[in-house]
Each structure stands twice: as C-alpha cells, then as structure tokens.
C-alpha cells in the first residue's frame, strides 16, 4: 500500500472523501446512539427486579383461603414444594434467597409482610433511612416501610403487630429505594415469617406449611441465563409456576418493548441500508471513474493484490475516519441527553396488590431513570460493520474492474 498515493487520491477528490466519511459518521452516530438507548431500555427492564436484588422471581399460583382473615398468602404465593426449592437452588448453585410474603388481614385494614433471609436483610440494610437492621435470630424485631411508618406515625422503637405478635421497629426503610416489587409494610427475618405462616389456620387450610417452608424465591441470576432457568423452573414446578424476570416484564410492558424493538429495527434499517448503499455507491462510482486508473496500474505491472489493497486501504481510511467521527458525535449526544426515563407498569403478581381490597389500591407503576452509557460492544460492532461493509463494497466494485484492462486503455 502506497501511503503517498493514498493521501494524494483522497485530497484529489475531497468531495467524495468528505461525503463518504460524513455518511459513515452519521450512520455510526445513529447506530451507537440508538444502541445506547436500546441498552438503556433493557437495563431499565431489569431495574424493578434488581431493586429486590433478583434477576428472577419464582412463585406458584395457589388457592383462595376459606376466610380472608389473619395471616393469608396472596393468590400468586402458594407454598413452594420443598424438593422443588432444593432443585431450583441446585440449578443456580445456591444463588437463591428464600422468602415468605404474606398479608395480615384485619377488619381495620391489612398489613403486607415479607420475611427475608440474612442476605435479604443485608440488602435492606442499604435502603435504611433510619435505625438499624433487625438481628436475624432476635425474636421480635422488624423494619417498617417509610410510607407505611409515616401513615401510621411509627418511628424506630415503636411496636407493630403482625399475626397477633408484637414486633419492635429497629429501622425505617426508604420506600423509593426498595422499589415496588414485593414492597411490604413490614420486613422481618425469615424464620419469624415462617413461624407466623405455619401457625396460621388460613395458610394451614390450603398448604402443609412448616416453619421451614417458603412461598417466594428471589434468584440472583445473570441476563444470559434467564431463558434457560425459566424453562427449568417451569419443568420443576409445573404450569402453575409464576416466573418473573426482565423477560416477562418485556412481555407485560408491550409499550416499552415495542418502542425499543422498533428502535432496533429502525436502527438496523437506517444504518445498514444507508451506510452500505452510500459506501457501495461511493466506491462503485470511484472505481468506475477509476476503471482506467486501475487498468493503468495493471499495465504498469502492479500485481492485482497490490491494486486491490490500495483501493481497500483508501476506503478503509475513509470508513475508519467516519466511524471515529461518528463515535465522537455519539458520545457527545449521549452526554448531552444524559438519561432516559421509562414508566413500567408492574404486573400485579410481583407487587401482590390485594385486588380484593378496593381501598388498598397500590400504584404499581415504577418510574425508572436510566443513565445512557457508552455502549462499548455496540461501538465495536459499529466499527466492525463500517470496516467490513466498506471492504466488502470495494472488493465487489474492484472485482468487476479487473477484466480487459488493455481495452479500457486503448479507447483513447
């Protein structure tokens, strides 16, 4: 490859060089920005579950208790079969947090309560706005949801009754930080919740619940394993399993997903067609214009490989420069826009909204603000695409210019 020749050539046709670079820059900018937004949407869908520290939530649909009084399990929170729990834990090498979710229904109103294990308490610890975490083995300590505490005028040191047992409030949890997935009025150590549930006649009427059982699994799982595990859980628990993840949220929140998928299609179409058409046209034009130039090089004894390399290098310089320009532009756009906000309407089975209680309507919409991040893989893919399509376009165009060089030259 002859650098001097290459530079001379680019400077000789500045219009073409600029047009090609700018087209590739625009295409790259669009691609990177759109992929960043699509990424943000994807991250946004993970957010509601991540606020309880899970990538997936496993539940089982159950029956309706004979009476709605005292400790009851919400409809999507049937007791999970102990062997099923163990098999799911084995699937993900123990990255599972067991929990018990329940309501305590009284004529005066109702309380939602979540019993979590040590890791769950660790998580809540980071959401405390006042006080400290309950000791896991302490008999009667609990955390209160901030909104609930304010509504009832409770503070650290107050007592609250759940299932007829008194709990001392050791801390107040910031509702904004805990999110809306399995938000509870009262958070307590798992063993306490298990004890309350096992003693409840309404639970006992439906399930053989012992103090070792649970009705909710929070699974810490990576994005790429969700599909496989969803499948496995359905095999283990059967058709009544309720498996929630960013995937199910995607299905439940058609609007958001639709937008992001459309964006992906839009992006792919715009970038792919636009960039390739521009590059192909530019290179085809340039190679056609230079059909004789290629023939001259052949006539001067340039091996075909050297000619091809020269033309490919020319286009790659333009493509590389364009991609670089587009990347800088995209970064500027990302910094300028900063973040995108999405509203997610959570399905009722992971908020456990008591649909039978009109006065207890819970706002199930979760607002998520996702900072736009630099999508490194998308950038790499864009560069690779720019380089590959350019190289391909030149090779296509150059290949056609190879035949009959002498007659291209003897036309006069």
């Amino acid at each position: 490859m002859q650098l001097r020749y290459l530079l001379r050539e680019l400077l000789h046709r500045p219009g073409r060089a600029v047009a090609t670079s700018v087209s590739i820059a625009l295409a790259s900018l669009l691609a990177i920005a759109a992929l960043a937004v699509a990424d943000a949407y994807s991250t946004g869908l993970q957010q509601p579950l991540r606020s309880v520290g899970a990538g997936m939530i496993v539940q089982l649909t159950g029956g309706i208790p004979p009476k709605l009084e005292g400790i009851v399990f919400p409809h999507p929170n049937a007791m999970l079969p102990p062997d099923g729990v163990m098999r799911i834990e084995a699937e993900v090498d123990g990255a599972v947090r067991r929990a018990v979710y329940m309501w305590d229904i009284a004529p005066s109103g109702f309380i939602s309560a979540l019993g979590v294990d040590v890791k769950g308490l660790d998580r809540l610890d980071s959401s405390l706005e006042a006080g400290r975490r309950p000791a896991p083995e302490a008999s009667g300590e609990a955390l209160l949801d901030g909104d609930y505490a304010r509504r009832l005028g409770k503070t650290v040191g107050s007592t609250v009754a759940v299932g007829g047992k008194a709990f001392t409030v050791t801390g107040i949890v910031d509702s904004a930080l805990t999110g809306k997935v399995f938000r509870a009025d009262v958070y307590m150590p798992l063993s306490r919740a298990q004890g309350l549930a096992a003693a409840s006649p309404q639970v006992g009427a439906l399930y053989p619940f012992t103090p070792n059982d649970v009705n909710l699994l929070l699974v810490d799982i990576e994005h790429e394993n969700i599909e496989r595990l969803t499948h496995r859980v359905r095999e283990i628990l059967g058709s009544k399993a309720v498996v929630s993840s960013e995937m199910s949220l995607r299905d439940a929140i058609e609007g958001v997903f639709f937008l992001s998928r459309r964006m992906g299609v839009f992006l792919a179409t715009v970038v792919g067609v636009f960039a390739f058409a521009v590059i192909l046209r530019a290179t085809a034009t340039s190679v056609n214009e230079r059909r004789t130039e290629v023939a001259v090089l052949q006539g001067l004894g340039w091996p075909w490989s050297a000619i091809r390399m020269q033309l490919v290098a020319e286009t790659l310089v333009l493509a590389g420069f364009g991609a670089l320009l587009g990347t800088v532009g995209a970064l500027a756009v990302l910094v300028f826009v900063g973040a995108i906000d999405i509203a997610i309407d959570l399905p009722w089975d992971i908020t456990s909204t008591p649909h039978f209680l009109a006065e207890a309507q819970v706002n199930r919409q979760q607002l998520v603000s996702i900072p736009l991040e630099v999508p490194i893989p998308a950038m790499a893919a864009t560069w690779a695409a720019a380089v590959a399509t350019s190289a391909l376009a030149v090779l296509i165009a150059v290949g056609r210019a190879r035949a009959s060089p002498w007659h291209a030259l003897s036309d006069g």
Partner: protein
Amino acid sequence: MDQTIIRLEDVRKSYGTVEVLKGVSLSVEAGSFVAVTGKSGSGKSTLLALISGLEPPSEGRLFVDGREISEMDDESLSRLRRETVGIVFQGFHLIPSLTALENVVLPMAARRKRPSRAAWEEAHSLLAQVGMDRRAGHKPGALSGGEKQRVAIARALISRPKILLADEPTGNLDEATGEAVLDLLGTTCREQGTALLMVTHDTDISARADAVITIRDGRNYHA
C-alpha cells in the same frame, strides 16, 4: 535467433465467438523498431494486449523475453510488465492525483514498499531526458497533451524495459507535437536498446521502421 525478444507461434484470440486473431506468427528482434498497421478493428490493440500479458491468448504459443506467457501466473505477468515491458497509450493515462514525477516512479511502487531513493533519482533523470524535468511537480491537469505523453514515455521507460509497446501514441496529438514525441520515442528506445512495437496509421513512420507488421483478416503480413 538469439536476438529474438518476442515470438508468436500461430496465436489465436477470440472474444466470445468472434475470432479476432486467427493465427499470427511473428518474431521481433531485440532493440528493433516494428510498426504495426492495419484497419480499424483488425486486432492491432489485441496483438499488443497479448504481448503485454494483459490478455491471455486463446490458442498458440507466445514467448516474451524467452518465457512463455500462457504459463505465467498473475504475479509473474505483473513482474513481466514491471521489468520487461513498458506501455504507452494514445490517451496518456497518467494518474491525475499524482505529480509528473510521482507518475513516473509509480511502476517502482508496485511492490508494496516505498520507491527507493535510486528510483526517484532515475525518475528525475528520465524526466530530464524527455525534457520535462521543470514540470516534475505538476499534476497532469496542468500539462499539455504532448507534455503528458512525454511523462508517459518516461514512466514506461523507468524500469529500463527490453520492450516498449505503444498503441497509437500520437493519436491525440497535433502533427508537430506528434512528430516530436515520435522522435523522442525513437531516440530513447534506441539509446536504451529497447525494442519498440508501435501501432500507427502513419505511413511515414512505417517507412522508418525496421519492420512492419500488417494485420488483415486476423493474420499478419510482414512487409
């Protein structure tokens, strides 16, 4: 026979079903000046294209500098053009983005490495030889037809080829300029001992040639 630099044995060339050359046999002596004549469309350019190795013959044997062309691959054919065969066209065909000097040195840049210092010096002296050293830094767009052809001749000669193929090199030039360019071609080829194969319609030029090859009905007639 030791002096033969080009030899064709019953060479045929067809484009599709059209047979342009129907059995051409000839030989060209090293350092000689051969004029190639014939009617338009008779196959003169095709003959030169075969000798340059840019077109493969359909049949027959074609030796250039002792090697048979049809047995050479792209790499050795381009080497042949780089080292043994120079070419000059009616249309000059200088690279428009490069200066006169860079055009002349271009054949030496074929091997993916930068031209050597010696190549640049050789290009300079060739430009001087064709009277174009003052315009070394100019691009083709700034040169007249005659000047462009001088540069093209310098470019064809930079590798000191044993053969120079010229396809109507004065076709685009006015008479006086054409004469001057022909003189230049003749003298430089003679000085370098280069065989000159030139397609021309000009009978005056043919008269000056060591041999004339006339192509008619796809065959050649030596005069």
